[in-house]
């Protein structure tokens, strides 16, 4: 704490200048992503798909995905359908 306050005024001014420069850079960085821009052509395909279907790509873990239970239920139904299909094939072979 003492060291901080012991800094020369010119150093403190320089630090604050750096802070505001960094803040502007962070704001520009955020503004770029928040603007809704998507790269042209195939590069932006996934992003445009996310925008069109309102897909949140930021969750870190499965519990953070809003419609995870629907996705799990979907897989359960797919597996049931596959099992029925396999059973039918086996029965037809017999």
């Amino acid at each position, binding site marked *: *704490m003492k060291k901080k306050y012991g800094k020369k005024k010119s150093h403190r001014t320089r630090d604050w200048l750096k802070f505001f420069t960094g803040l502007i850079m962070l704001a520009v960085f*955020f503004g770029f*992503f928040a603007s809704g821009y998507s790269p042209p052509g195939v590069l932006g395909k*996934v*992003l445009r798909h996310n925008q069109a279907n309102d897909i*949140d790509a*930021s969750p870190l873990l499965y*519990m953070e995905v809003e419609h995870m239970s629907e996705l799990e239920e979907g897989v359960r139904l797919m597996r049931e359908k596959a099992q029925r299909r396999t059973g039918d094939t086996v029965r037809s072979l017999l």
Partner: protein
Amino acid sequence: MEKGISALWKEEDWWAVWLGFIIIGGALLKWIPSIPKVGKWSSNPVDAFMIIKDGIVSGNIFLSLVLLMLALAVLTAIGVAFMRNENAGKYIMGFIGVFILATIAYWIANQINVKYWGLSYALWALLVGLLISNTIGTPSWLKAGAKTELFIKIGLVLLGAEILFKKILSLGAPGLMVAWIVTPVVIIFMFNFGVRVLKMSNKSLIIIIACATSVCGVSAAIAAAAACCAKKEDLTLAVGMTLIFTVLMMFFMPLVIGAIGMNSILGAAWMGGTIDSTGAVVAAGSMLGPDAEKVAAVVKMIQNVLIGLVAFFIAIYWVTKVERDPDCEPNALEIWYRFPKFVIGFVAASLIFSFIVVPAMNGDFNLVESTYIKPITKVLRGWFFCLAFTAIGLESNFKDLAGRMEGGKPMILYVVGQSFNLILTLFVAWLAFMVLFPNAI
């Protein structure tokens, strides 16, 4: 290191367990109301703090956010005061500052277009903290509230509640093969590659990058870092790399799969096993169609469940091999003293929810999730992780980060490890979904 009974109230690990279980107990007993979270917003930044139902504003979360901040400040201050005999008042002042910065990070991350890019709160929390620490310097009053390790460990104990073991059977044998066979092989490969081939001196950084690459990105990196008591800068580096590569893989993998005409279920399993974060997996899977989206998300979910086991084994390996005294064989008691106890809390929370809470609610996962996890433990875990990343940013500086780059070796490790992961996952997914169990889905 405390070795007696006093460790129970002197060690940070034990406090993480106590505080984590106070929250879990409060949730199970329904003493804790729904926890406020910063919401999504599009063009009006204030919407993030409004309660909006069917397009109508029915209130705001400002008061509940203040109450949450005070409740968490007091709860964690008890631990801090006991552990380090620190001034609780000073800690609470610092905590309030860190909480406000974490709220700003959440607010930035929850802008709808930012979410489409897959940039999570972890990145923004780090950047907000780094901006302060690398320019004006983190003031000492704010540093007093930046208890990174405590926040991470409490967050991990709470994360245990989300790791439900029975979920591993959601996709049957092929899902297990992709998620559970490849993952440990990639971790072992990357660890050996980092140590023996790249000759990296920082083993903690190697294991964090290996876990982030092979398990599930940021969350796995946090768990691994805490299990091996890594430096904050190591976690920052690994998280930075995984966030960048996650976005790149989310952009390019569906395009490659579509261009070569790969079977969509095989492609989904491939992406589920390799793209680091779950949100990016869902987005990339959705590009291949609704069925692929489901398969990709569930493969990733099965992999998520591995976090607890991985953290447990890393903790054991670190205590018995990496950090052991070369002159003496560690006995069971020594291993116990040095073992990171919060891992026990993490695994215990997972076991309690998987084998007691879920069966007690007639095996209804959805009910458990909607009653206890989604409104309480998950939101609080998110807050603790966001606080932790803000605190890491506040305590890191670019010079230290640059010093850990070892001539770009961590980046080489990530690229080589991820390439190996891509090849092995594709092979195992093909074997599981196309050859051994072609009728599983």
